[in-house]
């Protein structure tokens, strides 16, 4: 049976509700995420995933309920929140190294610290030889790696990833999934990863949260107890995948 998770609670969401006028998008969601946990959220297209994320990052304010990081209401100016968007979001006028340093400079970290972290990320992502290149000179997948590197460089309290591999082919996807796992393990960040690909969710997550159709609620939380690196042909893996797919059929 699963071991009891004893890690401290990092992020707590209490009764999160969001309405646009009369339209209820998020309906009374409550959950918590432990420090260093990797959570995948699966939900149908248009169920309010983006609204959910935007509430977490304070691009939108929730109608009621709130999000707490270390017991304090979340605030991008105080907390370290990183977001990997679905679309390519490297700043095209900055070199690879300046892109990775971008968030760190906004947080006004000391210069040596920025340099240290940028070097570490460049090493981890294998981008050392491209440090002076512009994103436009690299491939789309390399650009996505810059963005992932930029997010991890922040050593965020909370790292949000919104279908970051939506537009990539299968091979690149596998490669980058492993990359994210490696960075997550190395740096111990807390990650919320949104996807509609169930296989991806089972491959990555420690815990999968299944959302319902709009208005979004949490239907179920599934713990994935599989050793890493995971094997997508393992019968147990397939069992998890089928279980979640089954739940989703009722969307």
């Amino acid at each position, binding site marked *: 049976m699963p071991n009891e998770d004893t890690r401290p609670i990092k992020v707590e969401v209490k009764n999160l509700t969001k309405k646009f006028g009369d339209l209820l998008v998020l309906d009374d969601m409550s959950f918590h995420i432990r420090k260093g946990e990797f959570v995948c959220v699966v939900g149908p297209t248009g169920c309010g995933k983006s609204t959910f994320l935007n509430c977490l*990052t*304070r*691009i939108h304010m929730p109608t009621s309920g709130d999000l707490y990081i270390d017991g304090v209401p979340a*605030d*991008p*100016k*105080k*907390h370290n*929140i*990183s*977001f990997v*968007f679905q*679309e390519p*979001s490297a*700043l*095209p*006028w*900055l070199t690879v190294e300046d892109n990775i340093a*971008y*968030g760190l400079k*906004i*947080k006004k970290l000391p210069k040596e610290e920025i340099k240290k972290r940028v070097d570490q990320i460049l090493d981890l992502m294998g981008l050392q030889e491209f440090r002076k290149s*512009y*994103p*436009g*000179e690299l491939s*789309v997948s390399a650009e996505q790696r810059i963005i992932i590197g930029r997010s991890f460089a*922040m050593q965020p309290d909370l790292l*949000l990833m919104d279908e970051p591999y939506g537009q990539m082919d299968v091979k690149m996807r596998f490669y980058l999934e492993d990359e994210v796992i490696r960075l997550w393990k190395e740096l111990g960040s807390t990650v919320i990863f949104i996807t509609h690909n169930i296989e991806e969710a089972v491959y990555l997550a420690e815990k999968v949260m299944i959302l319902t159709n709009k208005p979004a609620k949490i239907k179920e939380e599934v713990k994935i107890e599989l050793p890493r690196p995971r094997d997508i042909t393992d019968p147990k893996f397939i069992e998890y995948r089928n279980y979640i797919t089954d739940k989703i059929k009722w969307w």
Partner: protein
Amino acid sequence: MNKDKQNLEDQLQLWRQNKKKENLKYVLLSAAGILSVLVIWQLAVVLGLVNERLLPAPTRILNTLIFKINNKAPDGNMLGVNIMASLQVALSGFLAAIVIGVPLGLLMGWWTYADRFIRPIFELIRPVPPIAWIPLVVVWMGVGLKAKALIIFFTAFVPCVINSYTGIKLTSQTLIDVSRTFGAPNYEIFWKVGVPSSLPMVFAGIRVALGNSWSTLVAAEMLAASAGLGYMIQIGRTVARPDIVIVGMVVIGAIGAFLSMLLSRAEKYFLRWKINR
């Protein structure tokens, strides 16, 4: 491994050489284009198809051009003096338009308050042709450098504002959101995301502004000038010397092309990150 690398290097060399050859071909083609126009023109004059008193031949114009470098007749200034006078007028109006217009457009595009406050005024002034300002400007400031520069300013100001405004409005919302989730305040996002992302449009605006200011020059120098290329053209007309008029036109064209080239260099430098994938 090494062999492969060597092979690649060789191919790159070859490709570069071919590219160079191709470039040379295109340069020659451009030169041939200009040359053929000149030849047809010369032939038309030599064969008597057009009256030489109305349209002098290119060789005659070249002679006049060389003559004007050292001689003051008929307008009272050597060519260099005229060029400097014109550049002074055009560039001071043009630079003032950039310094005032670009920041104004950027502010209007970013902050709604600035937009709502300034835009109506701007929209009212915008459709007024710059030349319509001439009488007022003369009453206000006489006919000196300031007055002429002001006319140029009006023609260059509008594209600077409009392009900066549009450019910063087109800033990707995703990039703004990225900065916001990092906790950047609005003015920092303006400076680090809005301004650089608007640069391609700003440069396009500056290019239009440069063209406008240089081509309004003749109109501005109709304000009782005593030197300048536009003035030289005026005198050429008065004394019925079409060759002087054409020399003025050619020099204006050449300097315009040169300034445009300088701008391209600057653009290439500032937009070096802009690579079309």
